[in-house]
């Protein structure tokens, strides 16, 4: 269940939903030009300025991109205040009512879900580890039944013991009560047996609730699914499984008085303004192997101008920009130069920009015409158009490198990724269109980076004789009214569709299922814009998700990725990146790949 449009801060999949990208890449091209000039100018004297000021505080080991592979500025010191700011408001801090990636990351400070991602550097950060549960889920052989045992001795902030019923209730309210809590994803509803019939805890007052979640005792919870789903441990990482006591639940009002299970509880919360977290004395570190909980206090402020957030990072008065999508374009030149450069990280954002070639729009029904586009696109020009290497790398696969199952390959290698006109023209001949053809290329008008990329694609196409007319639509209706509506796409001859995608959870299935599975084609609002419905791919996806062997599963995702590119209906363009800045006061800084390339908030502390 993927929502078509989205709020402005990084949700779980930013490019499809994140207007943040739109805001931040507006001036990217101009800014990049400035950045290059400044960088060139600065390089002459950088050796001096680098050894001078800027290395103070604890940031001595800091080098550019250090947080991608290591924990920067390691510290075991307890105390201090970690301060967060964000340019937007969260959809909700209620663990059961949020879709934003950064809230999922942040909510782990006060809520404990059944499983979570390991707070660790590099690839290790993608590993799912038990949190509230004492071990990962125990699947039945058919991957349809999942059993978790809760750790003993976990308490709510009021001292009552957490039971499996509180977890069950949390899943019920977050997935089945859209009249009050409509922000979060509904994967549990989609996969639980009888999920389409259950009315939710506010309407269905029966004491047993949904029957497909069993709680045989206070420590055990069993999920019965209607289809095999081997990625279930990933679903269990969602903040939706962090327990909620039914008697404290006031529906949408719960956000004002969230009952904590993590090391922090809410000292104050002000809608639209921010919140302060303080230590939760009921949290017992013995029950919690993944949290160090170093800061004494955590503050978060909403709706701070992005420029001000950046300024506060630069002047070291702030610990982290909570949105985790990187600095504003205006700040980019400043941090890509001189003394600030070594405090930047450019992690992958777990998302891909690509062009979908609709297999029902002529002449893209012919694989050779699709391959002509694959060979013909100058991907470096596309990369430059969207803001250069700090904002993205040239892509050759559907899966970004930070998704579980990524396999490196390039079926259409060209020199410097600049495209191969001869090979493209050769494919055009085989397609029966030696002189090229006319088609339509769509993009979202309010996403400057996407518009810039579309223009670059158009220029590449012109070189091989394909005349792509750019047609633009607003983000809010892109999928619901236009490119996600097959009838509209066919009748308007929309052959090439610019889009972007990030996964709700970092596995090949989480990434691919909604964009290449035939079952994801919908009358409206679908994200499989190529209308790819290849029995082999569909079967491979369905088989792999039923396979409880994690290694075999991971391999399958790479193989499916290859199948998609052999079919040539999607042209990967850019693995998107964030340009993050870590101030000197920030300690234990590392990028978590599990949450779209932002810093890991469970680890983070501050010297302030």
């Amino acid at each position: 269940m993927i929502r078509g449009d989205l709020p402005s801060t990084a949700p779980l999949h930013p490019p499809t939903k994140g207007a943040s990208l739109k805001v931040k890449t507006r001036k990217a091209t101009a800014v990049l030009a400035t950045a290059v000039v400044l960088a060139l100018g600065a390089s002459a004297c950088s050796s001096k300025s680098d050894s001078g000021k800027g290395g103070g505080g604890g940031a001595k080991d800091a080098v550019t991109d250090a947080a991608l592979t290591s924990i920067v500025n390691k510290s075991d010191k307890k105390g201090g205040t970690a301060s967060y700011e964000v340019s937007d408001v969260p959809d909700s801090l209620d663990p059961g009512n949020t879709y934003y990636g950064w809230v999922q990351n942040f909510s782990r400070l006060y809520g404990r879900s059944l499983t979570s991602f390991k707070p660790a550097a590099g690839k290790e950060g993608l590993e799912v580890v038990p949190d509230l549960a004492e071990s990962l889920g125990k699947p039945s052989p058919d991957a349809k039944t999942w059993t978790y045992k809760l750790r003993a001795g976990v308490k709510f902030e009021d001292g009552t013991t957490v039971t499996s019923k509180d977890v069950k209730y949390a899943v019920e309210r977050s997935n089945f009560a859209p009249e009050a809590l409509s922000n979060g994803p509904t994967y549990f509803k989609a996969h639980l047996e009888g999920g389409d019939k259950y009315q939710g805890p506010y309407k269905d007052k029966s004491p047993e609730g949904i029957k497909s979640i069993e709680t045989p005792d206070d420590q055990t919870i069993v999920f019965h699914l209607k289809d095999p789903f081997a990625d279930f441990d990933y679903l269990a990482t969602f903040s939706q499984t962090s327990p909620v006591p039914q008697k404290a639940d006031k529906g949408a009002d719960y956000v004002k008085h969230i009952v904590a299970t993590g090391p922090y509880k809410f000292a104050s919360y002000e809608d639209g303004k921010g919140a302060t977290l303080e230590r939760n004395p009921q949290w017992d570190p013995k029950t919690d192997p993944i949290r160090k909980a170093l800061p004494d206090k955590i503050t978060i402020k909403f709706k701070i101008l992005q420029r001000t957030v950046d300024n506060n990072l630069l002047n070291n008065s702030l610990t982290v920009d909570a949105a985790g999508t990187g600095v504003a374009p205006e700040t980019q030149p400043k941090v890509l130069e001189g003394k600030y450069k070594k405090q930047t990280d450019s992690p992958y954002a777990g998302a891909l920009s690509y062009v979908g070639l609709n297999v029902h729009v002529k002449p893209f029904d012919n694989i050779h015409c699709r391959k002509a586009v694959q060979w013909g696109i100058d991907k470096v020009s596309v990369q430059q158009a969207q803001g250069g290497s700090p904002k993205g790398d040239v892509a050759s696969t559907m899966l970004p490198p930070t998704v579980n199952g990524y396999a490196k390959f390039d079926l259409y290698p060209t020199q410097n990724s600049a495209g191969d006109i001869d090979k493209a023209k050769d494919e055009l001949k085989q397609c029966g269109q030696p002189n090229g053809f006319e088609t339509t290329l769509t993009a979202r008008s309010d996403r400057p980076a996407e518009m810039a990329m579309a223009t670059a694609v158009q220029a590449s196409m012109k070189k091989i004789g394909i005349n792509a007319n750019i047609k633009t639509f607003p983000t809010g209706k892109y999928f619901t009214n236009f490119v996600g509506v097959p009838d509209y796409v066919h009748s308007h001859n929309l052959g090439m569709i610019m889009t972007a995608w990030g996964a709700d959870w970092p596995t090949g299935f989480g990434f691919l299922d909604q964009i290449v599975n035939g079952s994801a084609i919908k009358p409206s609002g679908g994200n499989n814009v190529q209308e790819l419905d290849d029995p082999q791919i569909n079967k491979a996806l369905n088989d792999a998700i039923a396979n409880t062997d994690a290694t075999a599963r991971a391999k399958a995702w790479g193989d499916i990725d290859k199948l998609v590119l052999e079919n040539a209906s999607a042209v990967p363009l850019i693995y998107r990146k964030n340009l993050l800045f870590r101030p000197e006061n920030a300690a234990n800084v590392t990028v978590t790949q599990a949450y779209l390339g932002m810093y890991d908030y469970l680890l983070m502390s501050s010297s302030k």
Partner: protein
Amino acid sequence: MAAYIIRRLFAAVLLLLVVSAVTFAIFFLVPRIAGQTVDQLAAQYVGKDANRDSIAAVKQNLGLDQPLYEQYWHFVKAIVAGADYKFGPDASHCSAPCFGYSFKSHVEVWPQLTSRIPVTLSLAVGAAVIWLVSGVAVGVLSALKRGSFFDRFFMGVALAGVSLPIFFTGMLALSVLTVQWPVWGDGINYVSFTDDPGQWAWNLLVPWCSLAFLYSALYARLTRAGMLETMSEDYIRTARAKGLKERTVVAKHGLRSALTPIVTIFGMDFGLLLGGAVITEQVFSFKGIGEYAVKGIQDNDLPIVMGVTLVAAFFIVVCNLLVDLVYAAIDPRVRYS
């Protein structure tokens, strides 16, 4: 005098009622005339996650399927007596004065507004003091020394002040004073007056000056023009001929009547500012009424926009009422009969 005040008060209340009716019509009547169905209207209140259940809930809570006059009655009644909104397990009571309920963030608008009024008020009052004092002083001196270096210099500065928008001066001040030369090393954050008056003033200093720069320029030019005109009047010559001291002539006779239009403009400006110093609050990320309005507009959260509109209208009406009363003190020609 008392009768005058009562009359004006009565008119002000009537005016507010009209404003509320117009606001109500814009939000509830116009969309219907434009062809929106009740469901579409309700869907706007829910936002992007509109589903059948949430739309039905809004429709029921707002009574959107009832006749319009009844809806308006509920709307006014809520302001006076409060209202109940039912979602999930519990009903939330929006206590009087209920200036709407945001279905998107599930909060009452009024407490949000009241928590933000001190911010906007601090900003507006401080800036107003600075711009009135500096603007009027510069204006008077410029008028008296017409053509001098002082006059030319400050009128030049005034021209710059009028021309430079606050999102330029404010942003510039912010990046210079918080990063380049970090006098405000921890950034500029609003601190409540009751928490720490010193920090309150210290943090507001830059916003005050940025905002006042814009206005004082305007007021200096206005005062200068008014003074020039008044000082050439016959009664000024008479006053001088009577042998009054120049200071008395300027302050008691000249300035007093030159101030009348300034007070009028000030009433409007100040009232508007209390309704939200939109750009200044955005630039400095202050959580005032203007920032709230922008948030409401960005999120398409109609009850917020409506609440701010009504409160802003209230401030403007009140400020104008006060201006009318102040006239008596400064302009002897005004009689309350």
